[in-house]
């Protein structure tokens, strides 16, 4: 069990900067999710921690040890690959026991330990089969078992759930979380699925184009995204962003189509943060929006664009001028298509981003 520290780690492939000056500390026993869109450098970061890729610059520490120049064999970590990398010519028993075999454990000891982890992972009755005879979920467990059998300093996961169907994914997710918490092994978990990261992690690091944009607990990142990229990456549907202009004299925000929203108590803070007439982004989560009966100082006139019932809630997309806004409503009678509605924007919940994207208030 150990802390993992990355100091100014950069990886360049030819002309591509895959990971750009990344500094990060993952605490002992922490479940850390690395989240970002495809191609942002998550896998590359993980592979550098595993020793499968050498950083172009920067240093990596596992525990107190500088492992930057050590090969994977010497790092004492376990990794679960996206394709599981189970060997088709070996039985599940041999697959799981492989880390012990290469360390020259006695056969009986290998069998004993494999059986032990297989019990925990509920695959003890599959040990004589070959990987091809297992379902996706069972293969994933076998891969996890192989990572567990020789207790590592840290666990590395590269999108281990992406090959599973939706239902199995939920099951495997709770299972992984439970397992990690009961073992207390430091874990880095790479995913592009924000819901997965939110559900699993103690802390999330959001990456984009090789850079680490924000690190924080799921709630922090959800409530106070540091910029518009994080705001629109987290949440399903993500945060609504409305482009408007601050008018100091009237203490309102004016939208593109001329509609105005009264700032109320937030006016003073905005006056300090923004110049008069400065363009900005108003950010508001779909669940904070509500429908109103008629016009009001913080109401927007909109037209219903789509209605999607989700069971508990209904997802309503409305169109304001050229922009679309998502609302999560838990009403019994949702509006109907093309209906003219009023949307109430609770200013106390709103976030304000500068034109460049960074969070101001």
């Amino acid at each position: 069990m150990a802390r993992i520290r990355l100091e100014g780690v950069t990886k360049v492939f030819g002309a591509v900067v895959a990971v750009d000056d990344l500094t990060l500390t993952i605490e002992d026993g922490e479940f850390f999710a690395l989240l970002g869109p495809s191609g942002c450098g998550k896998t590359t970061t993980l592979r550098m921690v595993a020793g499968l890729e050498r950083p172009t610059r920067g240093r990596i520490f596992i525990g107190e040890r500088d492992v930057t120049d050590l090969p994977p064999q010497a790092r004492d970590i376990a990794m679960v690959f996206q394709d599981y990398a189970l060997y088709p010519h070996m039985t599940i028993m041999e697959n799981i026991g492989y880390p012990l075999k290469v360390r020259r454990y006695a056969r009986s000891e290998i069998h004993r330990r494999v059986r032990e982890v297989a019990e925990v992972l509920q695959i003890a009755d599959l040990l004589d089969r070959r990987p091809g005879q297992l379902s996706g979920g069972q293969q994933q467990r076998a891969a996890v078992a192989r990572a567990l059998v020789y207790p590592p300093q840290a666990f590395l996961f590269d999108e281990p759930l992406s090959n599973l169907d939706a239902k199995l994914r939920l099951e495997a997710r709770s299972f992984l979380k439970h397992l990690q918490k009961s073992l207390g092994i430091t874990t880095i978990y790479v995913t592009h699925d924000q819901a997965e990261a939110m559900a699993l992690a103690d802390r999330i690091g959001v990456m984009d184009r090789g850079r680490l944009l924000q690190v924080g607990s799921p709630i922090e990142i959800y409530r106070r995204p540091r910029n518009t990229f994080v705001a629109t990456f987290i949440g399903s549907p993500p945060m609504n962003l409305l482009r408007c202009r601050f008018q100091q004299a009237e203490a309102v925000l004016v939208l593109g189509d001329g509609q105005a929203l009264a700032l109320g108590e937030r006016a003073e803070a905005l006056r300090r943060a923004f110049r008069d007439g400065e363009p900005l982004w108003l950010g508001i989560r779909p669940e904070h929006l509500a429908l109103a009966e008629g016009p009001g100082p913080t109401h927007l006139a909109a037209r219903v664009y789509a209605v999607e019932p989700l069971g508990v809630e209904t997802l309503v997309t409305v169109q304001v001028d050229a922009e679309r806004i998502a609302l999560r409503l838990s009403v019994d009678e949702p509006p109907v298509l093309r209906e003219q509605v009023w949307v109430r924007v609770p200013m106390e919940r709103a976030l304000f981003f500068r034109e460049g994207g960074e969070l101001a208030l």
Partner: protein
Amino acid sequence: MTQRRPILSMPVGLLFLLPAMVFVAVFLVFPSLWVLWISLTNQTLTGEAALRPRFVGLANFRALFDFENWMVRGYFGNALRNSVLFVIGSALIGQAGLGLAIAWAFYRRRGIWRELIYTLAILAWIIPDVVVAFMWVAYLDRDQGTLNAILSALGMGRVDWLIEQPLLSIIIFNTWRGAAFSMLLFSSALATLPPSYLEAAAVAGARPWQAFRDIILPSIRSHIITDLVLITLWTFNTFTPYLITAGGPTFRSEVVSIYTFRIAFQHFEFGRGAAVAVVMMLINLALALVYLSTLRREARAR
């Protein structure tokens, strides 16, 4: 198992097969039976037996397996022994070993060295026999040969390779000549392995040679079997060594194919030559059967 319904009815299917069957019959089955028949006669090119070959039963075969002078140079046993050494040395160890070593050395690498080695190996493979033979005779020559020039520059004595080590010479020659095939086969087999196989092994703590033994070799097992059988057959049947040592000196590098050629087309004893050819065919057949059954077992295990 799902029941498969044939697309074509039986007679139509046979009709489509007919040209292939005629071809096989005319060019393979018929000549084989012809050779088999000749092997049971005393036919020669000239003289009495040329006009009226007599049926001699298994006499030709008995002569081949006459154990009194069986291992004497110039006899069949000697040729068979040379062939076995030639196959083991140049095909199994030489070509397959070298091919696998090169393929593994450049696994998931590219660059000028890989291009260079691959190009040279493939060149060695595709140059016409006669040109290659001339190159090697020149390379191994006692006085003007390149190899001896190198050796003497290194302070070692000159060796008359073709006279002193004829079998070793053709083994090295054939290794060089054919390693490209195994190399290409193995490198395409390696290319089909997901990169995560080796990476998972490395993360699991396996040293490179452990990963090679436990992961790589078993993963390309069926390719290795295919390769070994094919190059064994080719090497067993190849005639190119004749162009380098002509089987000599004093039959020391005479392999079975050269022996057959000598008996049939230099001594013109067609009957005995045909008998050797039949034995060669049987050996080939046995190898092919072993190969097919191994592959079938392999396919079932997956």
